[in-house]
């Protein structure tokens, strides 16, 4: 299916999803749990653009994700600050603006980290992303305006645009982000850019010798990936209502963002989606039934297992099974 047709398809599916769920599903729990799964689809898809398509491992998902969240906190508090500092009254910043802002901030961060480290080998980039998470977390911990280490309480607006509860509103936006990120991933796959990414992943020196501007493409990948992660994080403060550095920079986000594409399959847009739905759902169930620490342990073990036994993920397993049947 060509890219434009694909976009049409997923927009239709997304719209149908929103409309149908609003009409028939009244159980709030569905929206809470669904939001998390959709969020993970966005995070995994974003990760995979840099990880699976281009071959650069990013362990710093937490930094980009949390930056989007804290950007929203700043914008949420902005009217109050402007009022007390200048006596002006401005309207509360709407969520879509926060999402875009989160994307811009995290995209810029992606560009910056990339520029600093992408001229070195992939290993150093990966380690730098781990380092980066701690640096950003330390900055936030020391920034009292956004709550510092104590955290901050965010009150949801009483009315949701489009009617319905605010959680439904957040869920709607996360569905939109999912459609956007999956659409972008699929568009990249068939394009000149995607081929360029793949050449970098397969053999960066040969790509460079063949005329591919590798640094430029890598920066595009990091910026895009970071921006999508930031956008995924932007609605978080309204979702959790209490935001603190320990939970928002939680290593669980980094591990899940790696595990879901690895387990689902890194070479196609569908791998992260499958991985996110599978692992996300398992974790939602496990957190309720068994302890959350044990549930994280399972994710970690699954990651190790798949990386060793099935490095091409579930999608890869299906593909090789199909190829064996043809032969």
């Amino acid at each position: 299916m060509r890219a434009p047709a694909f976009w049409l398809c997923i927009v239709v599916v997304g719209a149908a999803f929103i409309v149908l769920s609003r009409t028939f599903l009244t159980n709030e729990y569905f929206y809470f749990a669904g939001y998390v799964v959709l969020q993970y689809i966005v995070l995994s898809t974003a990760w995979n653009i840099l990880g699976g398509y281009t071959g650069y491992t990013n362990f710093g998902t937490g930094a980009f994700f949390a930056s989007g969240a804290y950007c929203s906190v700043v914008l949420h508090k902005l009217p109050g600050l402007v009022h007390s500092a200048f006596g002006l009254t401005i309207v509360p910043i709407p969520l879509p603006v926060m999402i875009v802002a989160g994307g811009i901030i995290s995209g810029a961060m992606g560009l910056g980290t990339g520029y600093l480290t992408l001229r070195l080998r992939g290993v150093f980039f990966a380690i730098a992303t781990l380092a980066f998470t701690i640096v950003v977390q330390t900055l936030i911990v020391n920034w009292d305006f956004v709550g510092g280490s104590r955290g901050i309480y965010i009150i949801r607006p009483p009315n949701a645009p489009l009617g319905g509860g605010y959680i439904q509103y957040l869920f709607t936006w996360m569905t939109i982000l999912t459609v956007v990120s999956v659409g972008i991933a699929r568009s990249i796959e068939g394009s000149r850019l995607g081929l360029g990414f793949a050449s970098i992943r397969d053999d960066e020196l040969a790509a460079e010798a063949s005329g591919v501007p590798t640094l430029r493409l890598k920066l595009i990948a990091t910026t895009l990936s970071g921006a999508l992660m930031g956008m995924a994080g932007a609605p978080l403060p309204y979702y959790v209502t209490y935001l603190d550095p320990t939970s928002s920079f939680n290593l669980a986000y980094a591990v899940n963002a790696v595990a879901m594409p690895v387990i689902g399959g890194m070479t196609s847009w569908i791998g992260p989606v499958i991985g996110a739905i599978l692992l996300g759902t398992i974790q939602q169930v496990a957190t309720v039934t068994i302890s959350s620490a044990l549930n994280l342990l399972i994710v970690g073990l699954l990651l190790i297992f798949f990386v060793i036994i099935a490095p091409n993920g579930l999608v890869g397993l299906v593909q090789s099974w199909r190829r064996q049947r043809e032969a």
Partner: protein
Amino acid sequence: MTEDIGAPLLEVKGLGKRFGGFVALEDIDLTIAKGERLGLIGPNGSGKSTLVNCLCGTLHNETGTVTFAGRPLNGLIAHERTHLGLARSFQLPKPFHSMNLVDNLRIPLLYTVNARPHHHLTDAAIAERCAELLKDVGLADKARRRPRDLTQVEMRKLELARAVATEPTLLFADESMAGLSHSEIEEILAVLMRLNEHGITIVLIEHIMSAVMSFSTRLAVLVAGHKIADGPPQEAIRNPEVERAYLGE
């Protein structure tokens, strides 16, 4: 017979490269004329591949200048040099293993040929060109296969085809024939000859003396990072220093 050998295409002056304390190349002067077939030989570790890497931008030389078609290359990185018309094949073939052969060739077409100011190949033209390139090296029937399905000599041919796809003016063929049988060597030499007849200047870096001697119009010899001979092939190998380097005292 090749066209008349013309004006200098590549001028290297005083090129030097170190790795920490180890001097890989020192004070290399080399001029390559348009249309010629230069053979570059030397014992293992003499710096041949390092020189290619420096000229193509994969490594950075600390001293010396390189001018290509009148343009200074210092400061340009590898893909920029490829855009200008310098191409190379790698000693150990480095194919894009997740793609089929056609896509392997699409990369240089999309990113080098289409990046040049006046060219713009449509998708159809690209597909046609890929088919043509594969046919020229005899890989047309394996177009949809992946590199892992190729034999050694086929990988070497793919390597050359990919370099040729960038429409270079100067091609460095880095040890394309190592480990091949006599007939396979002839195949590769034929491909290179055809390319030279079409106007591509070729630098052949090789160990296989028979191939180098029959192919080259000029021979340069590197030993321990220094150029010790440079001239017509028969003269160059009779140089006493060259004999000493290969046969010992």
